[in-house]
């Protein structure tokens, strides 16, 4: 990884985290107001939860990207039940999804077993789910199937989809970042790196971003050999 890429990521990530923090502080202030309505209070608590999860993911990614740069991120590939990994991410975000009134569905054969680092891949999927929960209209669908030598996991939504520049080059950090999407970009970059670190014989993992898909919104796919 080039140093300039890392600097760019660092800058955008710090910006995003400061954003999240100011939103958190704002929500706390608003929650402290005496005349706040029950409805408003619920909204602010939801925002609080979302921004805190995003902050947590940002920090994980920052640490992760730094360690990839230093060549010190161990990948522990072992056998896992894919449904379980996916469901764990749902369980982590149960409250958030509930608050955003998002329908969440996992379409995955419970018998599928695959080989990957469950913590890293779980983290990647978790981040995508947190972001999609925010941007989708009302549904998130996670699918998983074996395609030849690869396992393909997709996170689909019915929101506005990914911006054009991210569709083109998901695995390079974005110049002239749209700061509102800062964390998404870092998360996607991290996802691409984690996918690449999964190798089997001559195959390497990769990711893909598309718009459309089964729900007409954004589709994030990760392919693991």
């Amino acid at each position, binding site marked *: 990884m080039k140093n300039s890429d890392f600097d760019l990521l660092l800058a955008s990530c710090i910006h995003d985290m400061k954003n999240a923090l100011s939103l958190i502080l704002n929500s706390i202030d608003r929650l402290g107001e005496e005349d706040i309505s029950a409805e408003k209070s619920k909204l602010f608590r939801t925002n609080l939860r979302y921004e805190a999860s995003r902050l947590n993911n940002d920090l*994980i990614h920052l640490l992760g990207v730094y360690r990839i740069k230093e060549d010190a991120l161990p990948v522990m*590939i072992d056998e896992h039940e894919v449904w379980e990994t996916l469901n764990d991410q749902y369980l982590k975000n149960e409250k958030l999804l509930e608050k955003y009134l998002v329908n969440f569905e996992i379409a995955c054969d419970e018998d599928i077993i695959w*080989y990957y680092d469950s913590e890293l891949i779980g983290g990647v999927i978790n981040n995508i789910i947190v972001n999609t929960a925010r941007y989708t209209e009302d549904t998130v669908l996670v699918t998983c199937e074996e395609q030849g030598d690869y396992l393909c996991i997709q996170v689909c939504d019915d929101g506005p989809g990914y911006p054009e520049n991210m569709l083109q080059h998901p695995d390079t950090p974005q110049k002239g970042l749209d700061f509102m999407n800062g964390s998404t970009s870092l998360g996607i970059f991290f996802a691409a790196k984690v996918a690449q670190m999964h190798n089997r014989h001559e195959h390497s993992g990769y990711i893909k971003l598309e718009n459309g898909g089964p729900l007409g919104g954004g589709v994030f796919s990760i392919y693991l050999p």
Partner: protein
Amino acid sequence: MVPTDYSDKKFLIVDDFESFQKILKRMLHALNAQDIETALNGVQAIHQCQEHSFDVVFCDFDLGKGINGLQVLEELRRNDLLRSSTVFIMITAESSRDAVVGSMEYKPDAYLNKPITPGELQSRLVKCLKQKTALEPIYKSMDRKDFAKAIQQCDEEMAGNTRHKNWCLKTKGNLLCRLGQWQEAQDLYQDVIDQRPLFWAQLGSAQALDALKKSDDALAAYQQCIKENPSCLEAYEGISRIMMEKGDTSSAQHMLEQSSKISARSVPRQKLLTKVCKINHDFEGAAKASRSVVKLAEYGMHKSSDNDLELADNLTEAAIHTDDKKKAKAFAKEAIDKLQETQKKYTDPDIKIQSKLIESRAYSSIDKKNEAQASLIDAEKRIKENASGNVKNQMELVKSYFQNGEKEKALTILEELADAYKDDPEISAQLDQLTDEPVSASGKRKVVRINKNGIDMFEKGEYEQAAQYFIKATQHFPKHMGIRLNAIQALLFDIKKNGPTINKVTQCNQNLSAVPDLPDNHPQFKRYSSFKQSIGKLQVLLKDKRS
């Protein structure tokens, strides 16, 4: 999710934060759990497991100052304090990932990442308990230590359509290793690797190759493990062992230091590092490692007066061997403080005697002759009164006589001991390490043989082998000047033939520093000085190359 009821299960929560214990307790209460014990640290946790038999243990990885969660698990398993049907769940934070992936030997049944949600907690519990039930017969055989039967049961399980194939393979590999069937284990691991480069199989394969004495293959396999997982402690230790075996003790020390950087919290590893440092005449390194041992042992297990005495002895050696007067003073002071603390802490007369003897050397190292003499006399008096005949007291006495310049007295006792313990190979070997010429009959024979074999190799031009052979011998006869000088000579010829490396020059230096400064009428003086000169030149050469 299936409604579950855990009212008949016994739980243990280990976390140094009471607030987190409460959060977890509340989540468990919501699942109808009734019987929940807690512990604030590792020692309490181990104590709890001695008292009760738990169905599920939740243990935080980071337990503050004492031992961490992984070490709790290690201790519990090593002392058979966990039934194999007990579910052990490690609770981690992002920052503990390194340590968690660092050890393959002791794996919990599952991990939970903080922050935990009730859904995740239940999902993990259901899965683990289901797995334990499905594989119960295998776990039971393992509990009975009937490994052959357990292997057979793994094979049976894999013959059917099972979700647990991976677990069975892993377990079978492990059991084959425990039975010493290394070739079978290696075949199993290689089969797995041919399919998928799973990490546990790569490490298993390295360890099996190591046990099969295929040291070059094992070395390559361990190095591959470190490349994939730079925090794999077992791999560093494996390489270190192979290096010791090859006589390359400075590389061994380097590897152990690497693994200590990742996790310095293992008492056995720090003890091993202490030993290797001493072999390498790196007494400051030995003092540092034994300091960690004392500090770690304070929090419970492995605690003993031996650790304190060992630390004081290493500090004293560091004071004796450094040229820096300031440093020597600091080391000696630390040693004396430690010893006085030890003398207060323990009433055992032997500990008092040994402590006084080390104290005498510590004073002597900074030229406080009167104090040194006083401590020595105190110890002599106590030995007479006590008359327990403890051999360790006698050995410490020998060391103190040598340090205080009373060589005759030292040699007299050594010869008496050599005769009294001539049928005890371990003590004979220890006695031989106290002096330049071995005192035991077997030691004397060994030195003759070593010199003969080494010189044979040397004369055939096998300089590298000869060097390794002599260096390996210094582990047993660290004070033997002839072996040290022979090692240096072989190293220098090897360097002349194959070119210098940093490691080889370091080895020259280590051996040279183990030879005391010789007076110019000493028969070996000429040889010694010419070696010293050559090594000095090599150092300059290497420094130029690097800059």
